[in-house]
């Protein structure tokens, strides 16, 4: 893939165990993220779209290493040749110490302890609901300054200055320093959360549905803020959302997720103009258009999302898919480049042929 990828993940898996039996052993697992490969370019806003329970938030948190992945690699700002070396070694099935050493040095999925803590300053997250993501018993100044202090970047007066600077950037001011989160409105709270995420000047920020808990009129303010901050701080975003209309406006590229897998990803224009996967088509066509003259008669996608504990065999979408063929029930489609930069995982596109051929 392209050389200017900031973040590259490969075959990432995250399963949640379900405990049961007399000794509470693992009896099954929820396959929240099941083999996802992606690369996110420096300075872009990458949109991740899917319905609730498809694993998009889990994917975001696994990339940040809030959750430990069960399998797969996460490369953050690693030279391409090293990534290639690791991949080639892994594909050989090598168990050499060289691979182990390389992974420990470069693969974020193996990091732990102090090293991981230090790495945190480069990647941050903004949560969906600022009422729960800000400690109600801390002052704004302490909330925003905390990353600076624990990362050892600054403390005391210097930290204070940096906090004020970042607060001004997100549209708050010095007078807000000595207040508790509950004294603010929803939009302002989200601004505080953004300030906390950006105070360490990270390279990469995961935005986990950052606008879904605020009102329509405030939402636009926040989206504009995200755009401005991206320019000012040269940020790379992973924008997770279920609202396609927002993603369409803010993202450069979009990936669509269904039941723990990415079914399609492409530049925004392409995917919204010409969605290829039947699920993407259904999803995009079910978004209501805010224009009564463009009301369309459409056949909504029937059925509901199956449980991620026992996902359907083969292609996970096949029980709801209008184009389902025999092969879809047996084999899992691999994600492939169908057009330039347009990746899709669907058998229907290459005439029901298995990928093995």
């Amino acid at each position, binding site marked *: 893939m392209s050389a200017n990828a900031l973040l590259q993940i490969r075959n990432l898996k995250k399963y949640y165990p379900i405990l049961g039996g007399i000794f509470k052993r693992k009896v099954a697992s929820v396959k929240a993220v099941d083999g996802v490969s992606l690369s996110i370019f420096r300075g872009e806003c990458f949109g991740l779209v899917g319905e609730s329970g498809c694993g998009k938030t889990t994917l975001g948190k696994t990339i940040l290493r809030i959750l430990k992945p069960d399998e797969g690699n996460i490369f953050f700002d690693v030279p391409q040749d090293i990534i290639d070396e690791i991949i080639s070694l892994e594909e050989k099935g090598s168990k050499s110490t060289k691979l182990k050493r390389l992974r420990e040095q470069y693969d974020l999925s193996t990091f732990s302890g102090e090293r991981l*803590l230090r790495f*945190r300053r480069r990647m941050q997250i903004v949560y*969906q609901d600022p009422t729960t993501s800000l*400690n109600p018993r801390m*002052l704004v100044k302490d909330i925003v300054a905390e990353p600076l202090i*624990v990362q050892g970047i600054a403390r005391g007066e210097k930290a204070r200055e940096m906090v004020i600077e970042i607060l001004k950037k997100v549209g708050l001011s010095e007078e807000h*320093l000595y207040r508790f989160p509950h004294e603010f409105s929803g939009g302002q709270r989200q601004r505080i959360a953004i300030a906390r995420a950006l105070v*360490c000047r990270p390279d990469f920020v995961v935005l986990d549905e950052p606008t879904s808990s605020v009102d329509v009129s405030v939402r636009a303010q926040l989206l504009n803020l995200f755009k401005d901050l991206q320019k000012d701080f040269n940020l790379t975003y992973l924008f997770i959302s279920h609202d396609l209309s927002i993603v369409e406006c803010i993202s450069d590229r979009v990936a669509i997720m269904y039941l723990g897998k990415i079914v399609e990803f492409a530049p925004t224009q392409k995917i919204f103009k010409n969605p290829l996967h039947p699920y993407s088509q259904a999803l995009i066509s079910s978004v209501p258009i805010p224009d009564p003259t463009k009301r369309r008669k459409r056949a909504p996608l029937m059925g509901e999302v199956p449980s991620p504990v026992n996902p359907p065999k083969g292609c996970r979408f096949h029980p709801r898919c209008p184009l389902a063929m025999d092969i879809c029930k047996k084999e899992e489609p691999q994600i492939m480049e169908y057009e330039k930069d347009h990746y899709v995982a669907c058998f229907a596109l290459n005439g029901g042929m298995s990928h093995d051929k």
Partner: protein
Amino acid sequence: MYVKSKWDEIKISWSFRVKEWKFILKRISESPLAVTGIAIIFGFLIIACLAPILAPPQGPDPFIVPQDIEIATLTPNPTPPSTRHIFGTTDQQYDIYYACIWGTISAFRVGLSVIIIALLIGLVIGTLSAYYGGIIDEILMRITDIIIAFPGLLLAMVMAITFPTVLPLDITLLTLIITAIFSLTLIISKSRRKLLLAILAVFVGDLFLYIYNPIIIPLNLSKLDKVLISLALVSWPGYARLIRSEVLRVKSEDFVEAAKVAGCSTLRIIVKHIWPNTIYSLIIVSTLDIGSIVLTAAALSFLGIGAEPNFADWGQIISRSRNWISRPDLLVANYHTFLIPGIFITLFVLGWNLLGDALRDVLDPMIRRR
């Protein structure tokens, strides 16, 4: 709001907390029940403070109830209230008024110290259990199960009886245990290697000291102290469970995860993010429990395990009435020996319960609103 000095900053950051408490107090003061509760507790506080004036001590130890020798020579039986003894006397002529006044101090002492000890133990155990989960949680929770499975009153009885009067407090062993717990938490939190090494060095040194020359301080315990310690040892599992569930609740909130993402160490997350958010529930429950603990201590006294027979303690006075359970005439004749101290106990407990109930009404929605 422009801040000039460090002191200003502290003042401002505290003024918001004070404002919050003022709000809570205002809400509480609107409920007549809560005001009654606070008034009762204040009343008892005043009695406790003025005890030396209200009932001047007659010996070196003010907690020893004076005996009226003059009447004792005449009769062993209790005398009803009179001008000489306004609440009357017990058998062997101990003054009930004196015992009730000084008993107030004992009640505060028992209630507060048991709560504090039990809370401290519960805080450590509950937090460890909830934060680390898994096998640590399983072991600690099974230990609490064992203590809860046995009727607490009886366990406290057995403990209070068997506890030695002189407790050899082994300072070296204590430091050994504290360093062990501390380094364990550091190992689990995977940070601060140098500090960890230093603590391990202390640990080894301490171990050496412990083997060759332990420092032991003998502690003399009164009977009330023994009751106090055994009550604390019996009641911590409840707190451990409460704190565990509170920590679990807070732990799952986004701001704890956000703190992790910011790079906070485990210790910092617990102390700065989790504990402050459990404080309200702890306040409510401990207020409600002070009364209950005083009741249990009185019950132990009633069964004959509490304070010494001449010690100023409400339950101890009532326990003297046990002898007349099968003698209806004596029970009626000596009503004052249990009626008056009983009213003291009930009012004291009622005060704390009223306050706790009101606190819950005010604080509980504040916890849930978040």
